[in-house]
């Protein structure tokens, strides 16, 4: 199977709890994929498996034909997969600019170039351009812990973008946002697609998920229980049961 991005029969077990159960997923280039499911369904674990934080028990993850499961996170990051986190985790003592520079410098860390100045003019300009794209340039020298939640989420996205990734994983980026802020987020996701990125987003906010995803996967208890376009998923009985049943 040679496509852009596939997950084949991926499983992950944590001491008896099957967090991810034989999950299968496929994504074409430049798609916007949504992953939804009740709490504890294994969505974030799936992201952690994709970006290398966990090693799967079994199964494969293929990115442009290459197996990436079980590889180290920094290797995967350099291959072109960036992510944000469910609970915002900026580098608190670093400024907004420095936060972005950390991932911006991903290509320098493993060569002799790592001894170069990180605040050099081309780097700062490049990172600032990213901040402008996300509307954060005003806060460039702020300490990241002083940002509001919505801005922190954007910072996380900026950080992921600085990897120049082909795939961006957004983990509940709409959580805690107001209505207007989530509209901004939807606009942003579409903008990312326009720039050629492929996006997978985990969302609990149904409006956002249904509005922006081109296709959806529904997870429950670690397994994929449904897949399809938003219209199809909204009517799918299994999905409705999964959400209601878990209350």
């Amino acid at each position, binding site marked *: 199977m040679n496509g852009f991005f596939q997950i084949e029969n991926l499983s992950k077990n944590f001491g008896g709890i099957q967090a991810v159960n034989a999950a299968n997923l496929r994504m074409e280039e430049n798609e916007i994929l949504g992953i939804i499911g009740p709490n504890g369904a294994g969505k974030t674990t799936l992201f*952690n498996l994709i970006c290398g*934080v966990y090693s799967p028990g079994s199964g494969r993850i293929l990115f442009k034909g290459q197996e990436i499961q079980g590889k180290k996170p920094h290797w995967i990051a350099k291959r072109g997969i960036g992510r944000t*986190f469910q*609970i915002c*985790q900026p580098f608190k003592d670093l400024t907004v600019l420095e936060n972005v520079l950390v991932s911006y410098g991903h290509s320098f860390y493993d060569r002799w170039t790592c001894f170069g100045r990180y605040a050099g003019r081309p780097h700062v300009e490049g990172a600032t351009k990213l901040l402008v794209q996300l509307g954060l340039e005003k806060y460039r020298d702020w300490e990241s812990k002083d940002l509001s939640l919505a801005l922190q989420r954007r910072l996380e996205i900026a950080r992921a973008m600085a990897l120049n990734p082909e795939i961006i994983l957004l983990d509940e980026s709409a959580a805690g946002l107001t209505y207007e802020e989530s509209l901004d987020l939807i606009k942003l996701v579409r903008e990312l697609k326009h720039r050629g990125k492929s996006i997978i987003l985990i969302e609990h906010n149904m409006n956002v998920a249904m509005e922006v995803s081109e296709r959806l996967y529904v997870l429950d208890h670690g397994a994929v229980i449904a897949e399809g376009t938003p219209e199809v998923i909204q009517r799918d009985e299994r999905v409705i049961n999964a959400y209601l049943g878990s209350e």
Partner: protein
Amino acid sequence: MEKILENWVTGITLGSIYALISIGMTMVYGLIKVLHVAHASVYVLGAFLGFSIYALTGNIWLAFPAAMAGCALVGYLIYSQIYQRVQDARADITFIISLGLFMAMADAFRLIAGPYSLSFSHTFSFPGYQSGILKITPEQLLVIGSSVLLMGVVWWVVNKTKTGLAWKASAQDREVAMGLGLKVNYYFGLNFIFGSALAGIAGVLVGIYYGQVNPNMGFLWSYKVFVVMVLGGLGNVLGTVVASYFLGIAESFTISYFGYFLPRDAIAFILMIIVLIFLPSGVMGRRQRI
């Protein structure tokens, strides 16, 4: 044969002492996830308090409650004034704070009581135990007896009282416990008081057993307590007790049969480092959940 029995007895006595000191520290770790090094200083305090009361009153049995009370108070102060303030700090910073406190207290003891050992001897009115070649001195009897008694108390408190239940709940998940209305800080404080009182008794016992107290007592035992805690599983009271006896007996036999190829503390630490490296990820500190 007699030597073997003697080693067993010594080992069990040693193990009892390790257990009494370690229980307090491992309980604290289980609850607030802090390596409370200063606990060793509390233990030394107990020894000195007991010694002072004995010197003042000549009554050995008064020494114990005095030590318990003093240590409980100091333990509580340490919790409320120090650990409560740094609840969300990184674990290594908290450890360094505890270490600083430990060293400051050790030096304070040296300044107050002088750097030399003070003789703490008392002949007990009850005899030891002798049966054939098995010989247990009255001091050993006291140590082993009190330890068993106290560990029984610990077991009872942890497993049969509301306090023990609160401890177990808070150890599992502090926020959930708080959410359920548990006055977590109150129970943490109780835990410190309880553990510190135990350490105080241990201090008096050690003083009596070795016939002396000196300000450097804490140093000798503190590193061994680390080893015991790591071997027994951090926060695991039963494991710590088992590990204490294991270490006590092992030490007793090795001292008697082999020389040292390295100082005792170095050997203990090598053992501990090896165990730490090969333990499952449960010991790798709190991995950030992302």
